[in-house]
């Protein structure tokens, strides 16, 4: 009896083992559960870390650049899908000044533009400077409103080039028109910031300052050149719409449609330069004036200005050409002389020599040429002396000719001892279509 009790008690040692095991097991399971829970938390945290790392990688992959010409004025009144009321100046039905920003996405990810800031740094009251709202803050909208950009154009795909972002600034009257300053010669006066949805900000200056060819002291602005002529044909009679009678007529053999504007005039205007008492141009009062229009010489003007190959004097029409130059070097220089040679396929030439420079709104003759500091721009004004044009190039060659330009081998003072420092520059002068021409056969101006 007692023996069996002891036996039973001894057998209960297994119970203690079980109890101990349960305790240990519960502790282990609790610890395991906690570890699993903490691991889950850490895993979630790690997922967030990875997600944000990916997000930041995408942020770093954004790369927007403004491509030339940066901004262009929208001339059409209606922008499909956005609205109407755009114009280039204040007038009836004009509510906005609209611009087209050309942006390229060089990055590896798509980009959403969320806001555009524009700050004008020119004269007060021009563009986005006080007392106008400064900076101009443009938000995306589905329909056109002042200080907005087109919502449909806010997304840029990876690698997309020359994407157009349209934006509108207000223009309720002549005095309340926010037009971004666009000086000619081009000089940046607007700082444009583009903010993306990932928080990156890209910026560019507009208008783009042209510096090409990497010359040490001067550079040539491709396509920025204008022509003036006096005598039988006079460019001062051309500015304005032909229909209004201010210019020539188709039957007289020349016509032009650019409105006149004083220096500095924006592109597309006949630019009036006060030539001082230099004797070049049309006299008004004590000063002389020339009206420079976009590159444009009709056959009749050429005939009048030309006296044949090898001719050293001019005919009844005197032609002038100015070329926009900028000192892209690091030192100042004083122009001293220069030549120009426009060539068509090596046989037809328009040659001339430097008669002065137009700098800071004044014409300077050779004896008083100014010193041009680095970064400054000026016009080199040439008087054309030789026309060696056998035939009307416009009819001989279809389309606009490709013209090579050599100029100013001695346009500078020969700073240094090699040609590079003498400001020699050359290049394809005019992109196709820049030269305007007159089709005598059709009697229309182009």
């Amino acid at each position, binding site marked *: 009896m007692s023996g069996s009790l002891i036996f039973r008690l001894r057998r209960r040692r297994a119970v203690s083992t079980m109890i*101990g095991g349960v*305790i240990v097991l519960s502790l282990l399971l609790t610890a395991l559960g906690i570890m699993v829970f903490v691991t889950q938390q850490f895993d979630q945290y790690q997922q967030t870390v990875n997600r944000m790392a990916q997000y930041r990688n995408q942020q770093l992959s954004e790369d927007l650049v403004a491509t030339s010409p940066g901004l262009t004025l929208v001339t059409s009144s209606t922008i499909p899908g956005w609205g109407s009321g755009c114009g280039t100046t204040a007038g009836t039905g004009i509510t906005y000044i609209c611009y087209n920003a050309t942006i390229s996405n060089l990055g590896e990810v798509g980009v959403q533009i969320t*806001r555009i800031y524009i700050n004008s740094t020119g004269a007060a009251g021009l563009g986005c400077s006080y007392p106008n709202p400064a900076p101009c803050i443009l938000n995306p909208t589905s329909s056109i409103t002042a200080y907005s950009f087109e919502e449909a154009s806010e997304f840029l795909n990876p690698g997309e080039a020359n994407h157009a972002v349209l934006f509108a600034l207000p223009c309720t009257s002549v005095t309340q028109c926010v037009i971004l300053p666009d000086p000619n010669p081009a000089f940046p006066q607007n700082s444009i910031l583009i903010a993306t949805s*990932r928080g*990156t900000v890209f910026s560019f200056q507009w208008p783009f300052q042209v510096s090409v060819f990497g010359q040490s002291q001067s550079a040539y602005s491709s396509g920025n050149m204008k022509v003036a002529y006096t005598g039988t044909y006079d460019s001062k009679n051309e500015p304005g719409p032909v229909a209004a009678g201010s210019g020539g007529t188709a039957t007289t053999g020349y016509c032009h449609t650019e409105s006149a504007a004083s220096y500095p005039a924006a592109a597309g205007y006949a630019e009036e330069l006060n030539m001082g008492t230099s004797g070049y141009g049309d006299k008004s009062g004590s000063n002389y004036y020339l009206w420079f229009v976009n590159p444009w010489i009709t056959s009749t003007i050429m005939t009048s200005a030309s006296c044949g190959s090898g001719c050293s004097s001019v005919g009844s029409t005197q032609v002038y050409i100015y070329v926009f130059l900028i000192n892209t070097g690091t030192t100042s220089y004083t122009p001293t002389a220069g030549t120009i040679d426009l060539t068509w396929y090596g046989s037809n030439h328009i040659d001339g020599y430097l008669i002065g420079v137009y700098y800071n709104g004044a014409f300077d003759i050779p004896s008083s040429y100014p010193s041009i500091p680095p970064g400054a721009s000026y016009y080199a004004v040439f008087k054309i002396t030789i026309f060696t044009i056998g035939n009307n190039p416009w009819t001989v060659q279809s389309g606009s000719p490709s013209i090579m330009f050599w100029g100013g081998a001695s346009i500078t003072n020969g700073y240094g001892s090699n040609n590079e420092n003498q400001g020699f520059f050359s290049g394809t002068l005019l992109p196709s279509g820049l030269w305007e021409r007159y089709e005598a056969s059709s009697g229309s101006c182009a």
Partner: protein
Amino acid sequence: MWSRRGISTVVANMMMIGVTLSLAAILVAWAGQSYGAFSGGSQLFYQQRGQALQENFVIEEVFFNKTYQQIFVFVRNVGLININIVAIYLNGSSITPSTATGHGWCSFSGTSASLGVGSVCEFSLTWPSCSYPPNNCPWVTGNIFYIVVASTRGNQVAYTARGP
């Protein structure tokens, strides 16, 4: 005698089992509490760190308005969650943005300004009281300004600007 020894053994065993169970209960309770505190702490830690990581905001533009003697700071929430801006420092001094006076402007409501995901706030910082004549408050052109914007989760963004 024989049977009394058996009783003692039983009592001793029961006492040992009782003591063991008591210690086990204490151990389990302690361990549970410790594990609970650990797991709760880690949960809070990871949650807060996760939220702080998801928070992302930038100063996308700073504009100096000399006429009004104000500095406009544009802060955008480009993160994944809402944020609260609690402090703005200008050259080490805490600045309270002025009251909202125009559309889209932000000011501190109470002690913070809330920004939803993707939204932007324009804070207008009025130049702090200036005791350095003759400037009489407006900045000196060329001076460097170090602007820091801080959120409730401890994140900061800094922006260095030069006075125009």
